[in-house]
């Protein structure tokens, strides 16, 4: 049945990565001329779906069919989807900073006269495209001189140069300020008037409410809901319920916390983006961690959770602008990672492979790598002691491997994560900041890591748990902070919180911010 109205119909899309079913029979229908919003938690499968659509994952690497204009299509790559007018704008902009606006717009499809680039024609066409997106800049200006909002518009101009019919925007406003966001949304509305259909992935419910004609909610790789809405009259609560509404099984160990006095107190912590001056990634954040307590940090992508954690951990991210830290009441300075470790801080990164591990190392060298001092005897590394320490952790944490001399790159995600946990337990930290410690690992290993977290807290340590999985935060933590746009937007006892109330606090942007009671 061909519905005249439907531009795109993706049916039963299933995409399996080794060990993970990222998409499990997702279907979505997009009407011509609509702005279709796709919502879902981090990891729900939204970006994977868009990569399937745009040919990043070519035809044959997934199951299901894509029907465009009533006929099935089989994209072999981005080029072939672009040929059909589908253009994706990624969250991280893909412009070349050193090239001019015009050069960027026509990158890959250069305007040529014979063998040479027709600079004049390119400039003229670029100017016309910039006019359409309402950006008044000289096409010869290097892109690096533009702000993020302007760069986003250049991306859209680039898409328009390809005769875009279906524009996919992945979190288009996540890096933009209020004015630029409003601009962008206005532009999307304008393009819609010119027959451009858009798919917008967004976490910002107020934006969806403002411009979407239809909403599809994806959760755990499945389509949960898909329905039409009237722009301006969107029920945000319904979207939130659909986003988080998974059933909670008994996936979390129970624990009776013995919370003692304050261990780490952070006040007015403020951090600037490392490359974008003036953009605060952490904005006067204040919080505290008690002994024996597991404290969760909930926030959406880009909210500043990781940035806050890494900044606390030896200012290893961004530019420190101000704020104080107290450990057991004593003010401490930890301007380097080494000093943070000395003060008893540990940070387990969310990005295990690029920031947490040297994949050339074996388990043994990984475990001792943050505390070499402890295995040095007379200036030399004591190999026997190193082996003993590593074997101890391998046994205690049940790292499944033939020996501690096995390369970490051969381990499964869960065992790798345990090795990294051991690495951070070995220095004997007081405060462990765990950033997405269960990301990408299987349920069984997750449970073991939860138990480990509880065991560490029972030893009187303070645990900070950063996670995108709200059930995990609710299941493991004693107390929760929510963070949005670099600001702490709420503090709740885990017992008093539910996913919906958390999601509301996590999406409290500066515009919607009401006066929050900070208990």
């Amino acid at each position, binding site marked *: 049945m061909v519905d005249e109205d439907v531009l795109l119909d993706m049916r039963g899309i299933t995409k399996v*990565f080794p*060990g993970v079913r*990222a998409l499990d029979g997702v279907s979505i229908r997009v009407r011509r001329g609509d702005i279709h919003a796709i919502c*879902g*938690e*981090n*990891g*729900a*499968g*939204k970006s*994977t779906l868009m990569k399937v659509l745009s040919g990043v994952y070519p035809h044959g690497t997934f199951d299901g069919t894509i029907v465009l204009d009533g006929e099935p299509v089989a994209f072999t790559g981005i080029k072939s989807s672009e040929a059909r007018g589908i253009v994706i704008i990624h969250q*991280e902009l893909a412009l070349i900073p050193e090239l001019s606006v015009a050069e960027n717009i026509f990158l890959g499809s250069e305007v040529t006269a014979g063998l040479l680039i027709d600079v004049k024609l390119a400039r003229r066409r670029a100017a016309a495209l910039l006019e359409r997106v309402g950006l008044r800049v000289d096409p010869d200006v290097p892109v690096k001189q533009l702000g993020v909002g302007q760069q986003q518009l250049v991306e859209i101009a680039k898409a328009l140069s390809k005769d875009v019919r279906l524009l996919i925007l992945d979190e288009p406003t996540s890096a933009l300020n209020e004015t630029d966001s409003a601009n962008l949304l206005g532009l999307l509305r304008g393009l819609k008037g010119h027959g451009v259909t858009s798919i917008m992935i967004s976490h910002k419910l107020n934006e969806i409410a403002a411009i979407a004609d239809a909403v599809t909610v994806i959760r755990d790789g499945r389509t949960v809901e898909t329905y039409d809405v009237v722009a301006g009259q969107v029920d945000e609560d319904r979207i939130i319920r659909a986003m988080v509404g998974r059933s909670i099984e008994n996936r979390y160990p129970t624990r009776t916390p013995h919370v003692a006095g304050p261990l780490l107190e952070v006040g007015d912590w403020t951090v600037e983006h*490392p490359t974008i001056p003036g953009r605060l990634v952490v904005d006067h954040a204040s919080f505290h961690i008690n002994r024996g307590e597991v404290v969760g940090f909930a926030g959406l*992508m*880009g909210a500043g959770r*990781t*940035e806050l954690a890494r900044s606390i951990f030896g*200012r*290893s991210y*961004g530019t*420190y602008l101000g704020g104080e830290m107290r450990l057991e009441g004593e003010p401490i300075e930890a*301007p*380097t990672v*080494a000093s943070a*470790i000395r003060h008893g801080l540990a*940070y387990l*990164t*969310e*990005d295990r*492979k*690029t*920031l947490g591990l*040297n*994949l*050339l*190392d*074996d388990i043994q*060298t990984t475990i001792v*790598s*943050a505390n070499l001092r402890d295995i*040095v005897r007379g*200036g*030399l*590394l004591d*190999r*026997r002691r190193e*082996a003993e320490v590593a074997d101890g952790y391998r046994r205690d944490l049940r790292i499944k491997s*033939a020996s501690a*001399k*096995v*390369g*970490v*790159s*051969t381990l499964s*995600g869960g065992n790798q994560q345990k090795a990294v946990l051991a*690495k951070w337990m070995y220095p004997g930290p007081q405060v462990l900041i765990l950033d*997405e410690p269960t990301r*990408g*690992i299987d349920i069984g290993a997750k449970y073991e890591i939860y138990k480990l977290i509880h065991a560490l807290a029972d030893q009187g340590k303070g645990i900070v748990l950063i996670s*995108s999985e709200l059930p995990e935060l609710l299941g493991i933590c004693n107390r929760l902070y929510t963070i949005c746009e670099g600001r702490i937007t709420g503090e709740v006892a885990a017992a008093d919180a539910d996913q919906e109330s958390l999601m509301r606090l996590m999406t409290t942007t500066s515009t919607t911010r009401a006066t929050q009671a900070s208990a």
Partner: protein
Amino acid sequence: MTTLKNIFGGNLQQYTMVLALVLLAVTFNVISGGRMLTPSNLQNLISGNAYVLILAIGMVMVIVVGHIDLSVGSVAGFVGMVTAITTTQYGWPWWVGLLAGLLTGVVIGAWHGFWLAKIGIPGFITTLAGMMIFRGLVIWVSRSISVPVPSEFSVLGAGYLPEWGPAFTGMNNSTLLLGLLAAAWFVWTEIGRRRDATDLPVWITAVRIVLVLAVIGYLTFLFGTGRPGTSFPVPGLILVGLVIVYHVLTQRTPFGRHIYAVGGNKAAAALSGVNTGRVYFLVMLNMSFLAAVAGILFVGRATAAGPSDGTMWELDAIAAVFIGGAAVSGGIGTVTGSMIGGLVMAVLNNGLMLMGVGQDQTQVIKGLVLLAAVAFDVLNKQQGRPSLLGHLMRSAGRDAGPAPAATAPAATASAAATDAAVTSVPVSAGPVDAADTLPPRSS
């Protein structure tokens, strides 16, 4: 098979490269009619290549941290000239000139380290500039004229160990003593090894000891029975000393660990508390220091410093390191591996010379060998098998040989990392860019 494995330390591959070296030497010996394995030829081979091998010690550390040093030839030449001028023209005592040369090397190293670690200019560029600067300076300060050095330096560059003790041994007793020390050290480590692996059959240890002692004995005999007054050469002894020191430094100290950590994953090392800038600085400093040592040994052997000394040495050193199993992407490579790589080049040079092959053809052959050795390495890795050379070198160095995949090339590893990142979190909370890690702009 298992038996062989046991004899060869649980890993036959570990000895492949050494075996290749031995085969090469024996083959050349046969082709050249026995002129390869003679006392004087081996003594010359060691004296004549010690400086490149010393450069390779420093170079492997630079390459492990993920950089390269193109300036070492120019620095060696410059330091040699500084030593010659201060002693011969200024009349400073030879040892003051020696110290001045070494200090010059350290200062140059600090200069390179500063641009790399503090300013953030890649080592390739920093040292390309250094290559030009110091080559220019050699010619400048020497006015393009060779400057002789005092005779004391020739002891360092081409000298022999003293003759002493009873004559009934029939050889140079210093060399004999070295051989005995080497043998004793090996037996001692074998016994120590048995303490860790108690289930190892005694006869396996015995076979290992007999095999290695035979090799040590043969070499001792060759080096010790040359012309009267010759022995294992002094530059060779300096080289052996440096190899031991740097092997321990890289494999057994926290600083050595940091070198591998920074080379393997700089961002992860920084987040483990490693001061990456300091590691870069010290590695560059050390490289130029060793270049100074190499330069001084060379002028000692040549008895004079010339304006073109050290030209292209950097390339020989780099070739030795890569033949020795180091990875261009950093994180992999050992001092001992590089020494074997350097010896392969040296034996090749020497053997071709003995066969009467011209310099032109020798260059071609050396180039092809370099390409073949590294291609073999790369192909091995691509097929998912452990890299033979890389594995050998890493295992030889870190005697706890990691599992095969541990030496998978960084390219594969990072590709796997990307895949896994996509796999596990389709919508990842964009990891904070690794490049943002360092240097922390805050203060």
